[in-house]
């Protein structure tokens, strides 16, 4: 207990620094992946993407980020084992942040597509299993997290496949695809608004003082979806047919989907904020909980608002400083993605990630989106996908866990040596 009372403030300040740095990294790099499809499909400009990301990442982090944060904070470890030596948990969480941050830095420099989620989970499991004891890890929870990493891309892929097939069936095969697009696109907006609204209302709003039952959530989600749809219809009504004497005006149809992609981009940013902010601030919340209570482990209290806010600010800062550059690279490169196929991937990924957030499961937004893209590809919606990149993603998936774990163990013993035990 002495360590906490002696160094508590310093440790907390360090943890805040590491956590904000991690959030900054998520904002600088990860957000670009989440928004990349929209920018790549030329549905939104880079500036629009940055603004959307800032607003909705923040909203997602603040409104719906609590569940996953608490998983990272206290769902992976068994706090009761560490109640005698709370400083170990503090060191561990800080080590996890440092390990994940370092690994992401290295991986980004080499251009490897690693996931922040995988890094942080690997790091936490690593320090706990080696530094404290194998029994400190809640293996059942870890098992369900890891299986969610398999399930989430598959689910997003299935969903995007179905969505894209419906686009083909109801819009592209219609007698007048432009009118059909105008008619059916609000339906997609409604469905997306409903799912995102429902999950957020049900799971996310407790800490801002709203505790709704399932029935109430369902009812209010309908309202949210209706509002989104109405906004969508208004925006859509301004989209005019490109009057060119083509027998099929695909350009006009894609313009309609471009509007839809504006909406899915918002959902994507929201989903990303709700899930990935936890990677940065979950460990910070754990450290804060211990320091604040003067060394008590396993407090049942919710994640304080200021920490969620801090995570949101970190993401937005990273985005503002570096996101522009990354998105610019994306925006000038992808030309093969059309709004009609990009939206299906995004809609599926955003929905999957938001649902995962609701179930407190930390998933990788990027991997989920890749799953969504592959689903559209299977529905013959994308002209060329590089499967080697998918293989690289899988490899980095597997490599990240042990690397994150080993790094975390090193940092853990380092911190332990610096601050001591007792």
């Amino acid at each position, binding site marked *: 207990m002495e360590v906490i009372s002696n160094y508590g403030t310093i440790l907390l300040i360090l943890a805040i620094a590491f956590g904000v740095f991690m959030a*900054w*990294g998520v904002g*600088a*790099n990860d957000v*670009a*992946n989440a928004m*990349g*499809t929209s920018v*790549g499909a030329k549905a939104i400009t880079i500036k629009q993407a940055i603004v959307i990301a800032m607003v909705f990442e923040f909203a997602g982090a603040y409104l719906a980020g609590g569940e996953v944060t608490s998983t990272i904070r206290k769902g992976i470890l068994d706090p009761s084992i560490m109640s005698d030596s709370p400083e170990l948990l503090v060191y561990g969480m800080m080590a996890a942040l440092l390990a994940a941050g370092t690994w*992401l830095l290295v991986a*980004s*420099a*080499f*251009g*490897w*597509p690693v996931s922040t989620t995988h890094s942080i989970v690997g790091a936490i499991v690593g320090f706990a299993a080696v530094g404290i004891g194998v029994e400190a890890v809640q293996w059942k929870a870890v098992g369900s997290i890891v299986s969610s990493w398999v399930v989430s891309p598959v689910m997003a892929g299935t969903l995007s496949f179905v969505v*894209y097939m419906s*686009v*083909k*069936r109801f819009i*592209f*095969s*219609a007698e007048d*695809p432009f009118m059909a697009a105008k008619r059916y696109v609000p339906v997609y907006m409604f469905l997306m608004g409903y799912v995102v609204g429902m999950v957020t209302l049900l799971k996310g709003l407790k800490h801002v003082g709203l505790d709704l039952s399932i029935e109430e959530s369902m009812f209010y989600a309908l309202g949210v979806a209706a509002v989104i749809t109405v906004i969508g219809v208004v925006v859509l009504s301004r989209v005019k047919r490109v009057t060119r004497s083509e*027998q*099929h005006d*695909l350009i006009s149809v*894609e313009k309609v989907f471009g509007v839809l992609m504006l909406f899915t981009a918002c959902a994507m940013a929201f989903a990303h904020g709700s899930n990935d902010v936890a990677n940065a601030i979950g460990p910070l919340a754990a450290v804060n909980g211990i320091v604040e209570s003067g060394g008590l482990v396993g407090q049942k209290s919710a994640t304080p608002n200021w920490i969620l806010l801090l995570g949101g600010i970190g993401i937005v800062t*990273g985005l503002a400083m*570096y996101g522009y*550059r*990354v*998105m610019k*690279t*994306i925006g000038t*490169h*992808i030309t*093969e*993605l*059309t709004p*009609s*196929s990009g939206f299906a991937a995004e809609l599926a990924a955003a929905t999957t990630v938001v649902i995962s957030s609701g179930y407190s499961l930390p998933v990788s937004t*990027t991997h989920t989106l*890749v799953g969504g*893209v*592959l689903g559209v*590809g299977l*529905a*013959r*919606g*994308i*002209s*060329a*996908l*590089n*499967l*080697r*990149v*998918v293989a*690289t993603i899988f490899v980095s998936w597997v490599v990240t866990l042990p690397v994150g774990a080993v790094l975390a163990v090193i940092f853990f013993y380092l911190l332990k040596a610096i601050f001591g035990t007792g």
Partner: protein
Amino acid sequence: MVGNPLFNQLFGRSPITPIQKHMNVAYETVGQLGPYFEAVNSGDWEQAKHLYELILELESKADDLKSHIRLNLPRSLFMPVSRSDLLELLQMQDRIPNRVKDIAGLVMGRKMSFPEQMGDVLLEFIDKSKITCGFALKALNELDELFETGFSGKEVDLIHHLISELDEAEHENDRLQVKVRSQLFEIEKDLYPVEVMFLYRVIEWIGDVADHSQTVGNRMMYIISR
């Protein structure tokens, strides 16, 4: 923490635009045949030589495009159409400029000239080959929209329609070929036999241009009807 964005690598370059470009060059090559034979028939060998060189240039451009497409179509690319179907389509397309080069080369090498009474029908025959090839190009130019709409019914119908027009043009081309051959047959005894042999061969090769165009259409059917 700024690396190479993942999504730049995930999306491969679509091979469709280059394949369309290749077919465009092929069509352009066929387009030179008419002026070339006009020059040959009027004995303007200087102009003919100029056009021959143009044909060679276009043919090698098509070859370059072909190898470029092949090199950029790795097995790891996941596409809505089979890779081998695309490569075969490309091979069929490439036969067209090759055949045009053969024709121009043979005529140039032997300084051949067609009997005067054949001139008009021959040019009509050549023109029909060009039209047939044009239909193949037109159908192929719909391919990108087909990809964009995820191979949905409407675009498929349009391409089916264009391909049936292509078949029609090829039939007419066949009829013209018969006509040109029978004209040659009527006067062949007055001509130098070796020359006649090669005249028949040139007629056959001009017919090949339309045949190959039709094969391109057939290959496209494979691609869309999967």
